[in-house]
């Protein structure tokens, strides 16, 4: 166990390993996304209540689910980097933030687009939607803080502190938004609840969720590799790789 963690902490090893991983992940992700999208868009039957607009679910839900998971990945990496000072951890954190922000934005935008035909409004202040919006701000905060620092080592430290503070807060934020929503008890709206979803619609959804997880892993790895190449441009192992020794 420890040896694996130590290996992961070693840039040369990670660089090689992630190179292999990326070469496999890239085609797999693209294939999964294409199959899932075609299945969801063209093959699956329409929902009996919402008609065809429900097809947005195949991007909306995966984006939302992965965005949520992404914050925990980021915060965990931040904690590891702060406590154990493992450099790879803060590179992970930094690589995850923009991807998470994009996925959150996608969940928000597709949700808004879905809302128009379904509720007749682009936006409502539902508990889950509001939490998602706040998550978006949290992601943006990490990205913006990182960009604002000129010294990137310091930037990584600062982001680690921020994402940790954010993580401690996330359960509180979620709970409070839930209470807020249930207290005000809006009469008019209701998200499609736990309606039993037909398996003909479920399989493409599960496929897309898997595809988005792969996509998340892929983009995080790519961002990390970009970061590594630049950070270690002076070190011999990378020069050797580049020089073709």
């Amino acid at each position, binding site marked *: 166990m420890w040896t694996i963690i130590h290996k992961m902490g070693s840039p040369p090893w990670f660089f090689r390993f*992630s190179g292999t991983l990326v070469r496999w992940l890239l085609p797999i992700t693209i294939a999964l996304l294409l199959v899932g999208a075609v299945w969801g868009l063209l093959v699956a039957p329409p929902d009996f209540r919402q008609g*065809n607009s429900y097809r947005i679910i195949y991007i909306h839900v995966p984006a939302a689910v992965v965005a949520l998971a992404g914050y925990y990945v980021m915060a965990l990496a931040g904690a590891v980097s702060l406590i154990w000072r493992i450099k790879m951890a803060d590179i992970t954190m930094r690589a995850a933030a923009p991807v998470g922000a994009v996925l959150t934005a*996608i969940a928000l935008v*597709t949700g808004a*687009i879905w809302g128009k*035909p379904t509720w007749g409004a682009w936006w409502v202040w539902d508990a889950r939607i509001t939490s998602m919006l706040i998550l978006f701000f949290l992601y943006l905060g990490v990205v913006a803080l990182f960009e604002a620092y000129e010294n990137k080592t310091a930037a990584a430290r600062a982001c680690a502190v921020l994402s940790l503070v954010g993580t401690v807060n996330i359960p509180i934020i979620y709970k409070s938004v839930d209470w807020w929503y249930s207290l005000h008890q809006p009469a008019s709206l209701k998200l499609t609840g736990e309606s039993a979803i037909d398996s003909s619609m479920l399989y493409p959804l599960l496929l897309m969720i898997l595809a988005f997880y792969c996509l998340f892993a892929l983009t995080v790895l790519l961002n990390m590799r970009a970061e590594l*190449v630049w950070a270690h441009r002076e070190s011999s192992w990378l020069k050797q*790789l580049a*020089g*073709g020794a």
Partner: protein
Amino acid sequence: MYFESLSAMWHMDGHGIYVWLAYALTAIPLALTVWLPIKRIRQHWRWLEAEQRRVAPAASRTVNEAGV
């Protein structure tokens, strides 16, 4: 295939505009999040190779180890 024709697929009983818009607004940023780091890696890699060529002009080119 659920739809009978291309235009039915495009129209989706009036919801087409929403569905296609949503997919487009997803596809573009996702493509960018994959493409931008790849571009950056390639740039950095080219810089590194140039640097190596300056240091050791004799070294021959090899496979693209950038991984993408």
